[in-house]
């Protein structure tokens, strides 16, 4: 079942023509409206007129998260703020988030893409969809919301948390589609069991899960515990939010909505594009966004592209499920976390050379973050209450900066192993 059969089953030649037209437009738009891009193009010796085919994409400059940070908050917008009707933000590598903006047309595009995504996942106008993704600056909640409304489903905008209540409403409201992070879905299943509620008592049929990596094994567990068919969805706020790619019911890779985004796989070290079937870093160029179009955005996610036409009939290329990152970003309870954010908190409280380590555990089904901080000379005092307060203060500041809570533990100096090269900042004990 397609939301937009004409687009989703477009022939490859028609799709490529469309992509090329749209690529020309976004190159003009960024070149003329965004100083950062004009400079980046000029540094590469490329002008909009030089883009004569889709093949020429490889001559265009890349964009990284650092570029968004350097131009915080609105420096990369290609439209004046008066035309921006929505702002969203996502974790930055230090204290400041990365900011994206949407014009009215962008919101329209986003809703269209989410309608396609949700339809892939089994949503129709007769669905009752419980959106347990966070609402707010995070793109998950509102992204799914507008797509679901576009389809005409009955939307329960419940956001995250308050799990017992969520389950009660799931039962009372007759929810048949659940949208949240996969780890939250498993957690809900556990709480349901504790409450003595069996999946058969609920009307749940479909799950739309994303915002963090999850394995096929996890999928099987969720599907069996909740009695649903679950799909993986992919997106990132820099590209649009959720709605960049989605699995169909074949569950053999995620269809990238290529009429809006041109995907590439590159070698993360040499930056050379790789052919279909080879694993590397995912790069996207947005070809319809107006607010903050991005050219060759390096996602740091590792995946692979499969060109074969899917049994569902969609002609879009499929991306493999994300198998890792090329940087040290973590996703904990659906939130992007950079170790360098912890560093910026410690520098803020006056530490000049902080030594710290993040330890991520999956306790039961929820992720827990522990942060070890070596006691420095400036931190240590003969006051046990003072040291306890220090742990709490660091913990509170980290919660504010990262957006999730962490347990801070003061440890002895030199107890965190030093390395000759890059410090090992993260120990991820989760087996996803």
């Amino acid at each position, binding site marked *: 079942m397609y939301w937009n059969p004409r687009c989703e089953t477009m022939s490859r030649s028609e799709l490529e023509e469309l992509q090329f037209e749209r690529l020309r437009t976004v190159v003009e738009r960024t070149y003329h409206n965004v100083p950062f891009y004009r400079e980046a193009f000029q540094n590469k010796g490329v002008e909009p007129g030089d883009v004569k085919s889709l093949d020429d994409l490889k001559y265009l400059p890349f964009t990284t998260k650092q570029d968004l940070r350097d131009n915080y908050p609105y420096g990369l917008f290609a439209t004046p703020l008066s035309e921006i009707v929505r702002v969203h933000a996502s974790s930055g590598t230090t204290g400041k988030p990365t900011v994206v903006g949407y014009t009215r047309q962008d919101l329209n595009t986003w809703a269209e893409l989410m309608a396609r995504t949700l339809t892939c996942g089994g949503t129709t106008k007769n669905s009752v969809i419980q959106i347990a993704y966070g609402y707010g600056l995070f793109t998950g909640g509102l992204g799914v919301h507008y797509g679901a409304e576009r389809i005409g489903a009955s939307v329960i905008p419940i956001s995250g948390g308050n799990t017992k209540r969520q389950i009660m409403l799931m039962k009372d409201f007759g929810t048949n589609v659940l949208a949240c992070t996969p780890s939250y879905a498993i957690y809900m299943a556990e709480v349901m069991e504790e409450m003595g509620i069996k999946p058969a008592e609920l009307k749940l049929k479909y799950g739309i899960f994303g915002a963090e990596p999850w394995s096929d094994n996890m999928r099987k567990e969720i599907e069996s515990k909740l009695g649903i068919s679950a799909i993986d969805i992919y997106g990132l706020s820099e590209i649009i939010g959720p709605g960049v790619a989605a699995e169909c019911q074949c569950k053999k890779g995620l269809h990238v909505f290529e009429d809006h985004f041109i995907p590439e796989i590159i070698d993360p070290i040499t930056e050379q594009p790789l052919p279909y079937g080879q694993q590397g870093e995912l790069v996207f160029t947005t070809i319809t966004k107006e607010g903050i179009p991005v050219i060759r955005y390096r996602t740091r996610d590792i995946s692979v592209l499969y060109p074969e036409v899917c049994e569902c009939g969609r002609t879009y290329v499929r991306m493999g499920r994300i198998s890792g990152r090329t940087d040290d970003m973590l996703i904990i309870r659906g939130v992007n976390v950079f170790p360098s954010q912890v560093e910026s908190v410690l520098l803020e409280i006056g530490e000049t050379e902080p030594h710290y380590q993040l330890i991520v555990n999956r306790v039961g089904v929820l992720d827990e973050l522990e942060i070890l901080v070596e006691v420095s000379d400036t931190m240590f005092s*003969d006051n046990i209450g003072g040291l*306890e307060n220090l742990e709490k203060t660091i913990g509170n500041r980290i919660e504010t900066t990262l957006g999730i809570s962490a347990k801070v533990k003061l440890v002895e100096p030199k107890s965190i192993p030093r390395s000759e090269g890059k410090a090992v900042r993260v120990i991820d004990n989760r087996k996803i």
Partner: protein
Amino acid sequence: MVKQVSVFLENKEGRLVRALKYLGENSINIRALSIAETADFGILRLIVDKPEKASSVLKNAGFRVIETDVLAVEVSDEPGGLAQILGYLAKEKINIEYMYAFLARKSDDAIVIFRVEDRKKATQVLEEAGAKVLRGETIYTL
């Protein structure tokens, strides 16, 4: 005024032993000690015969060390002895952050170590009340 050596220790097996081993290997004798702990870490507080040497030995071994000035008071080793001393301090509203005690080998007295906010005032109050406040040198050479 007595110098106390405070050491940060993780609340993990072997940490305390490790610190004490370094002291032993460097011929440092411990007069008294106390440990203030939380679930994850603790502060080991030591009265030793050579506080400066203890500090540098432990610092070189990689521990976080700080020296704190504390008060040492002689208390007669009989029921009510300590309560009397505490009474003098309470009367002048002097707050005690922590304290611990040990027996003096060469006499029949106990020695109590106090950490107070205003050491000068506390010393004055105790001496005026007739209590014996001990100098560092006395403690170190016990």
